[in-house]
């Protein structure tokens, strides 16, 4: 397969997944904030007003806070929604990522099923016709649902139409690497989000467990539910962990659980499979650098325990996972895709 075509497949996979992840994050964040677990008046801490919707953490997740404040002064719902959804100057906005996916598909139309291209193109034309005002005036949830559906439609067509060949493996490599990365990122930032409310208390310590802010408290539970919802994991989580919503269980489910399709571990193991097939099709015997890196990451995920991860520092762990995903990405470029 032509390096550039493989690269485009890989990035189509990543961009579609990224658009979906952004839609999920903003959606859940927006709607979680509509219901507040805190009684009126309790929202203020010190002299700082509790924001109706705390958009800052979301800006942090996207890694684009700097980009945001260059062009927007405050975090109004309209501006933030626009930034994440339609702003073409934000390379990670839904429209930007979808456009990137679509442009990549356009450059390799002859490599992918025409239905896949059409799905990307039609959704792009659709998304482009919307703007933040109209979305806010209507139902933002419906908009995010449209994006998720577009992504699912695309992935469904992919599953149904693409030959089980190299192009498909590259699409999957991109999709699952991005998904692992995004899940790790959501968890990381959401976890951070819960911390600063009582800066001097450790939300994981038993000591403050009873307070509304502490583990198991109303704010905490509400926060973890939001995390689970943002990756469509709440219902599945409840099926697996019937004893309630606890950080260790959430980490177990979203990071380590092989069976859950949005978990970090699941994504990495899928990437491992793709890379193995790609290599053997290329006629290379020995495992190469991307496989070595991904295999090691998978081993770490497979043989870690949730409690251990939390006690060693969840943030450090998640940061490490994201960094290693990025290194895998560069190794893939070096080994296969560079042109």
């Amino acid at each position, binding site marked *: 397969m*032509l*390096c*550039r075509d493989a690269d485009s497949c890989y990035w189509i996979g990543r961009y579609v997944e990224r658009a979906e992840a952004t839609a999920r994050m903003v959606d859940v964040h927006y709607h979680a904030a509509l219901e507040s677990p805190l009684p009126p008046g309790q929202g203020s801490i010190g002299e700082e007003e509790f924001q109706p919707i705390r958009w800052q953490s979301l800006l942090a997740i996207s890694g684009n806070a700097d980009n945001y404040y260059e062009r927007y002064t405050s975090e109004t719902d309209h501006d933030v929604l626009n930034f994440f959804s339609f702003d073409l100057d934000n390379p990670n906005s839904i429209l930007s990522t979808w456009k990137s996916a679509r442009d990549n598909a356009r450059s390799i*139309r002859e490599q992918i099923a025409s239905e896949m291209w059409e799905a990307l193109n039609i959704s792009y*034309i659709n998304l482009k016709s919307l703007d933040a005002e109209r979305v806010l005036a209507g139902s933002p949830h419906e908009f995010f649902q449209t994006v998720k559906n577009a992504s699912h439609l695309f992935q469904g067509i992919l599953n149904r139409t693409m030959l089980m060949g190299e192009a498909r493996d590259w699409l999957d490599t991109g999709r699952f690497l991005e998904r692992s990365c995004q899940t790790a990122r959501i968890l990381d930032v959401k976890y951070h989000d819960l911390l600063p409310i009582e800066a001097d208390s450790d939300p994981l310590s038993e000591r403050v467990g009873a307070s509304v802010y502490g583990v198991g408290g109303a704010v905490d539970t509400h926060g973890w539910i939001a995390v689970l919802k943002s990756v469509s994991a709440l219902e599945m989580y409840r099926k697996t962990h019937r004893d309630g919503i606890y950080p260790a269980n959430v980490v177990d489910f979203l990071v380590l659980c092989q069976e859950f399709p949005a978990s970090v571990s699941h994504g990495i193991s899928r990437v491992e499979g793709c890379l193995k097939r790609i290599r053997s099709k*290329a006629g*290379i015997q020995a495992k190469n650098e991307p496989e070595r890196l991904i295999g090691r990451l998978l081993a770490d995920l497979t043989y870690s325990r949730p409690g251990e991860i939390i006690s060693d520092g969840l943030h450090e762990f998640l940061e490490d996972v994201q960094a290693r995903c990025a290194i895998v990405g560069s190794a893939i470029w070096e080994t296969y895709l560079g042109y």
Partner: protein
Amino acid sequence: MSLFESYATDGFYDEMFEPSGLPRPHYRKLYQRLVSMSKEDFRRRCQLADLTLVNQGITFAVYGNDAGVEKPFPFDLIPRIIPSAEWDLIERGLKQRLTALNLFLHDVYHDQKILNDRVIPRDLVVDAVNYRREFIGANPPHGIYVHICGSDLIRNADGQLLVLEDNLRTPSGVSYVLENRIILTRVLPQLFRDLAVRPVEHYSTQLLRNLMDLAPEHCNGEPNVVLLTPGVYNSAYFEHSFLAQQLGIQLVEGRDLFVDENFVYMKTTSGPQRVDVIYRRVDDDFLDPLVFRADSALGVPGLINVYRAGNVSLANSIGTGVADDKVIYAYVPRIIEYYLGEKPILSNVETYLAWQPKDLSYILDNLDKLVVKAANESGGYGMLIGPQATAAERADFANRIKSNPRNYIAQPLISLSRSPALVEDRFEGRHIDLRPYVLYGKDDITIVPGGLTRVALRKGSYVVNSSQGGGSKDTWVLAGETPEALGGEMRQTQRSHTETAPQDAENLPDNGGAH
């Protein structure tokens, strides 16, 4: 209410209607079907076709004002019909023309007999922008320079078909021929019923076979054929992608290829893979920065040397642009006679050459009547339509012509024939042309019946280029007319035209008059 309500031919030659207002014999069946359709029904089908175009992204990129914007190429649903006898004439005329042009190209890059015999002034060729000295003496496989040619034909007010220009470099548009047919059979299948419309989809098969035949000698087994595109920002990118898919060959950009030790390779995830034949849609200038424009990032350094060594084949070959130079165009009838000893079957449009002092003064004196064209521009750029231009525009062109006469030609404004096109909710006459695609293979020349009919959708406009507000139509060549289709009107046409010069053998109902 009929879509033809208040349709008027306005004194132009109309492809569908006689001056009397009756449909021409070969259009009768189509006319009856269209007349029986309601406006709403027709409109709905148009919307369906438009939606298909947009959803499939059948678009071209526009340069200039809206740079980078992709627009769908408007598709007008009313087909243009060419009777089989007329098609036969076109086919023979274009084969003759391409055969001669190919001999011309071989000659000017080898012995230069036509120049030594002073049939064409030598400087017009060797000093032409698109003459490639670098390619003198090189031998393309089977001696073929132009594998794919798109010649533009127009019909004048008398109904005579004329060649307006030849496109011998990287002619585009054939994807619309194939797509238009697919879409029309989907949205208006009933129009095709009992009209024997000749198919077009074998174009891809034929082209692929011709390309495979170009495989270099070292190639054992199936040759690796690729299509080289300038990339997604090129105006014809959709076509490149479409053709690659139809031909089942790899679409590549310059950066996907590299040259090593006089062979061309493409970069794949399993390592370099040798490339044998390149259907290139990149102009000469950008093909190889080592030999041509050094600032080109679209090309492949070293490619021309590999080609010259015979280790890769290119279609079209290098330096073909010298033969579609608009100044050389004026000499094509002489080129045909020189190499083939035959009279041209298809005539040229009368052309004035500004480099000839006599013609120059005529051009300058009659700018308001003439169409002036730059010798090496295409796509409707660098052109002045005298009768429709302002005095300032004409003055500007007069200066341009005077400062570089070699670069300009002028032709009388041909009143292009018209065909009905859907305008808002009814049919109106719009000017059209025809670009058939001619494939020059190892053994023979083939032309897919029909070609691209381009239509100037702006009222009164003569410019059919997609970049200038043009659209396209499906073009039908009928497999053969039934006796009743060849009505009395046609015989009358024949009689009136046999009185004109012999090469004006247009519009004949059968082969009798032309053989």
